[in-house]
């Protein structure tokens, strides 16, 4: 299945992109996606322990299963205001 990964702020700068597609086996979870990301984008590896996840624009946990077409946003610590 294909999911769309969105990157913001520090993660976007480090990756040099604000989104990309990730091809994952069926029944993968967010944690599986993050493991694949560590290999594909080593520049992000140091930051992946300090992020939250939004699946289709709602915060969720890393054990959440993914489905084809999902939008997974990696949310670094927010600093609005």
């Amino acid at each position, binding site marked *: 299945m294909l999911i769309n990964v969105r990157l913001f*702020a*520090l993660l976007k700068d480090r990756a040099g992109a604000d989104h990309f597609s990730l091809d994952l086996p069926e029944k993968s979870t967010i944690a599986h996606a993050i493991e694949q990301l560590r290999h594909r984008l080593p520049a992000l590896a140091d930051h992946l322990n300090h992020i939250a996840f939004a699946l289709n624009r709602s915060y969720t946990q890393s054990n959440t299963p993914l489905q084809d077409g999902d939008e997974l946003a990696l949310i670094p*610590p*927010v600093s*609005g*205001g």
Partner: protein
Amino acid sequence: MSDDWIDILPTALPTSQAIDFVSDSRAGGIALFLGTTRSEKNAQGHDLRSLEYEAYLEMALPQLQTRAQAARSQCPIVKQVILHRTGRVEFSQPSVLIAVASPHRHEAFAACRFIIDAIKADVAIWKKEIWSDGSGTWVQPNVAT
């Protein structure tokens, strides 16, 4: 017309329009909070030049709308405005604007505080500090570096 004006804007926040929006004969007080860019130096001694805000718009805007509804459940609000900037914000310019009209002043103050605290807690917006040497630092609260 809605009694809430919630938006994320790439341009200067319209303070006087916000006050006009919340002005209402049912209100006994209007509280206005502006979060502004303040002067700072980084560890290398460089001066802060400006701030740059980035938002996950499709998520942050509904989050602000949810915070507005939560504020209404906490305080009697007649009208409210919540506006947040994206892009570059120069010194003394507001990056966030909250205006609340309530029947009584203490409710308006309480609602403003509730909303800004909620925004800072988890709304998907990020701030980058731009320094005089041209470098930039993403602000990462609560992360050991």
